[in-house]
């Protein structure tokens, strides 16, 4: 309903009369507006407006706008109210507030950080009755087919696929006369490389990012030793000694000047692409996801390269980078399911989406859009495709409380980096608090 002009405060009699005149124009218009939408309800195709919400950079917003417009073009009765935020932290803060008020968006983006939380708490629509019928996952690789299921429910459908990726600044490395990090190098070799960058650049460039605070780096490192971050029933699958060793390893790297000072690590720990050492040219590596090359390349004029995290590539896995989820309180679950199916399976949608969120989940779409991808996205796709077959098994979905665990790991790592705690003390303090976080 269009807003009718409001009478000004403290009206005089004359004022009231003129206002009434103005309202006389406004009211019929407003009524017409109401009538319009209710009438169209009787003419068969019901008008539906879905609220859509996601996080990401401007590029993602442009792409998502386009792909939703394409859906409206094919289904004129469905329109979208779009909302997005740049940072995933504030995204989740806002999503939880909206969900608590019962006004969550109809269709929203989730990742592993929120999947279990929102599915277990019945905020995410259980898509079980749609998957296999309205939402087809037949063309998905095995690793993505069941990716969104949590405790017997399906809270989300994989929107794309990615894997952890180590980015490096090829231009700077070449200038220093060093060789690029490569898939399969050991963690020790990466540290040596970082120390060389520091020495060769006469202290101007800090070698490698210190990923001690990064749960996915810790997870890859644990998996390479046959361990895991979480057990399938949502407990920690590593010991305090494992974490102490991890923190001590990076404390050792700092002592060798292979990693930057703690404040620079802290800035990059936000995960924000623009704050990575590569983007600020303070260092030569960044520990991110494989779909972030195009976003990362935007912030630098240097040439970037990609490798897996150090160690055996078996530590990595093909994961659902994000999920599309619906709101359990939505009035249009069928439409939500149809839109999700369109987003993940439609070839035209796939062309628009490219590899911005990661590789298309539908293998046919993935193959058909390959040639239309931008250069940066093609590199991402080539990187990940080359790894198929080397990946380890898919780990269990992180339990609820994982968001808190991630933050506690950052606290623990930073307390070591800023020399406020020893690795052993930080590790045991972490496990105490983090265990409480995932068990309550």
């Amino acid at each position, binding site marked *: 309903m269009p807003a009718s002009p409001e009478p000004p405060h403290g009206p005089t009699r004359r004022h009231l009369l003129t206002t009434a005149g103005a309202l006389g124009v406004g009211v019929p218009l407003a009524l017409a507006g109401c009538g319009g939408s209710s009438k169209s309800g009787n003419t068969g195709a019901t008008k539906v407006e879905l609220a859509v919400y996601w996080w990401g950079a401007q590029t993602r917003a442009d792409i998502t706008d386009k792909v939703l417009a394409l859906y409206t073009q094919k289904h004129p009765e469905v329109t979208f109210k779009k909302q997005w935020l740049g940072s995933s932290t504030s995204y989740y803060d806002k999503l939880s507030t909206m969900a608590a008020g019962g006004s969550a968006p109809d269709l929203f983006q989730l990742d592993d950080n929120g999947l279990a939380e929102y599915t277990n708490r019945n905020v995410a629509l259980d898509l079980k009755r749609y998957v296999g019928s309205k939402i087809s996952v037949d063309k998905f690789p095995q690793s993505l087919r069941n990716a969104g299921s949590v405790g017997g429910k399906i809270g989300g459908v994989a929107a794309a696929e990615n894997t952890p990726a180590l980015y490096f600044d090829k231009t700077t490395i070449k200038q220093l006369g060093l060789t690029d990090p490569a898939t399969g190098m050991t963690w020790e070799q990466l540290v040596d490389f970082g120390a060389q960058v520091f020495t060769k650049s006469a202290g101007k460039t800090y070698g490698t990012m210190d990923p001690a605070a990064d749960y996915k780096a810790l997870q890859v490192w644990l998996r390479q030793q046959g361990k895991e971050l979480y057990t399938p029933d949502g407990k920690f699958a590593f010991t305090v000694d494992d974490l102490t060793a991890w923190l001590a390893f990076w404390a050792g790297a700092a002592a060798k000047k292979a990693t930057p000072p703690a*404040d620079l690590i802290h800035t990059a720990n936000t995960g924000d692409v623009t704050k990575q050492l590569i983007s600020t040219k303070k260092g030569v590596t960044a520990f991110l996801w494989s779909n972030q090359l195009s976003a990362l390349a935007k912030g630098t004029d240097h040439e970037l390269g990609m490798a897996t995290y150090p160690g055996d590539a078996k530590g990595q896995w093909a994961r659902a980078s994000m999920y599309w989820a619906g709101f359990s309180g939505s009035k249009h679950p069928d439409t939500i399911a149809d839109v999700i199916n369109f987003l993940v399976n439609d070839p035209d949608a796939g062309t628009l989406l490219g590899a911005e969120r990661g590789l298309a989940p539908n293998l046919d779409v993935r193959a058909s859009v390959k040639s239309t991808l931008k250069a940066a996205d093609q590199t991402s796709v080539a990187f990940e495709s080359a790894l198929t077959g080397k990946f380890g098994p898919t780990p269990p979905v992180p339990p609820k409380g994982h968001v808190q665990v991630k933050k506690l790991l950052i606290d623990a790592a930073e307390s070591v980096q800023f020399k406020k705690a020893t690795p052993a003390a930080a590790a045991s303090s972490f496990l105490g608090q983090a265990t409480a976080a995932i068990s309550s």
Partner: protein
Amino acid sequence: MAVTTTPAPPSGTAQSRHAAAARRRRRRGAAARQERAAGYVFLAPWLLGLLAITAIPTLYSLYLSFTNYELLSPGHWVGLANYRRMFGADPKYWHSVTVTLTYALVAVPLKLSAALGVALLLHRERRGIGLFRGLFYLPSLLGGSVALAIVWQAVFSRGGAVNGALALVGIHGRPWVNDPDTVLGTLVLLAVWQFGAPMVIFLAGLKQIPTELYEAAAVDGAGWWRTFRSVTLPMLSPVIFFNLILEVIHAFQAFTPAYVVSNGTGGPADATLLYTLNLYIQGFANFKMAYASAMAWILLAAAALLTALLFTTSRFWVHYSDGGER
């Protein structure tokens, strides 16, 4: 203060007079009732707002603090469990208490001193004094704004303006906002910089001090310091007391700068984990809304207790010129 007009007592003793008086009282009673009703009608929008938006949610949060309610799932009664956890099993909680107390203990005295100092400089009427008052008040107009905190973050970062200025004089700066040892200091500085509001109150207070006191002091040969200590400070003490209470409560509620500077995490290494930020993280990021409610009520109790404590001490140092009649 409410002014009540009491009707003069009826002076007659005759029956008829009594009856007339009773009639008058009834009429007046009816009129008063009507007036009261009208009062409530006019008050209704505000009163409903107070009840619906403030009072009921506030009391409801007290109830919630005894449950295990999480943001997206209903809870049930758990008694004092949240409070027990807060005091016994949550090292983060005590850390945030320490950070907040440190912040308040440093920021409040500094801010009040700055406000008083500038007010003393600005309270004499000179040409263009209004401009200076305006300029000094300007920073506090910006309030606890997000934009300001972002500017602060940039100015005090590794390559920021502060380090640039220090480099000019040959000092090697440090990453002030990203170093756990200095970040709280930058937040204190931000609070102190916004001394405008207490400054204006101090200015008003200084104007209230009768000039004859200063004249008498001058006649007695008192110097500047003596006059300040024996005339200005005692005469200003009620205003200082008022500002002190306001600023202490303000400091306990500080949130925005810490949230922005740390990207909502309370980092680096939890150095900016102010009480309210911890509360926000517990409630909205960790979903522990019941626990956050309990924290909020403890904060309220602590602020009330501290205010009461300040009131108790005030009798020893606050001087009321009307002879202590309160």
